[in-house]
């Protein structure tokens, strides 16, 4: 079977698949999504976001928790685009191998690419990388669960 490739998803289409909304939607544009496989997109950072005045007053830079959120939302796009999974609630189970390699400041564009390694029984595992100006800036491995499927499975086991 040939892969479906979704190209150029703007905010309207991202919202069709994604549960997150303002002020916690950390994706601006998806260049290419292959459902069940990979996703590529980006987020712009501008001084007009709620965390910059406080983090930090004289040195605005992106909090690492925001980067983790942006990375996990990119991974979500790889499997929320599969038929039947649109806007399904998810929960993060484990994050490993987190690395932050450089400071990201307002005016930067964070390019994100995610790869889904495994997706079975309501559990997804994948790798995400973020880069600024072609320079790798952060990366992490995520394990994400879909609670409704996990509950079903545990009920049928008992």
């Amino acid at each position, binding site marked *: 079977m040939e892969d479906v490739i979704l190209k150029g998803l*703007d*905010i*309207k289409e991202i*919202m069709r698949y994604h549960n997150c*909304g*303002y*002020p916690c*939607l*950390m*994706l*601006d*544009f998806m260049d290419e999504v292959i459902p069940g496989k990979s996703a590529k997109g*980006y*987020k*712009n*950072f*501008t*001084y*007009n*976001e*709620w965390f*910059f*005045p406080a983090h930090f007053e*004289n*040195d*605005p830079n992106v909090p690492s928790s925001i980067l983790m959120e942006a990375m996990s939302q990119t991974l979500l796009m790889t499997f929320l685009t599969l038929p039947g999974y649109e806007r399904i609630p998810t929960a993060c189970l484990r994050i490993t191998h987190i690395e932050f390699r450089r400071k990201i*400041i*307002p*005016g*930067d*564009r964070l390019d994100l690419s995610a790869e889904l390694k495994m997706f079975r029984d309501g559990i997804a595992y994948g790798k995400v990388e973020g880069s600024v100006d072609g320079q790798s800036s952060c990366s992490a491995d995520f394990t994400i669960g879909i609670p409704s499927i996990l509950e079903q499975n545990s009920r049928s086991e008992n």
Partner: protein
Amino acid sequence: MQDEAFALNEVELMRYQPNRYPFLLIDRVTEVVPGKYAKGYKNLTNNEWWIPIHFPGNPNMPGCLQIEAMAQMLTVALTSLDGMEGKVVHSYKHMGTFHREVRPGDRLDMESEVLSFRHGLCKGAVKGYVDGELVCELETVVIIPDIFKKLRPKGNK
């Protein structure tokens, strides 16, 4: 007066620009020659305060904020002059033209030019681009009240 071009990041910009969050609509100034011109950009993202309301389901940057962003870029060219750091600038007359929507995910590049600056009154022109395409234009007159009020004829109210 300095004639050399220099760049400003967000922290340096705040020395010259009195606007603050959530109304500072410039992210980086890439080139400025005080009293002549300023170039820079603003990134647009889904995480800005007007996104949920302008408009639900179809977010785009309000025209009044595009005017504000362009006017701020013009004031950078003025307030970077010697002795003008952080001075408040008021708008006097704007004429804006909008060619297409500016959406989250875009980068709004702005180029401002000072056409004349005398007695605290500045005439300027600013253009905004997304991916090299002209999206908005502004012809404007702004005043610096500190200077302008001192020089205004007394009898004229």
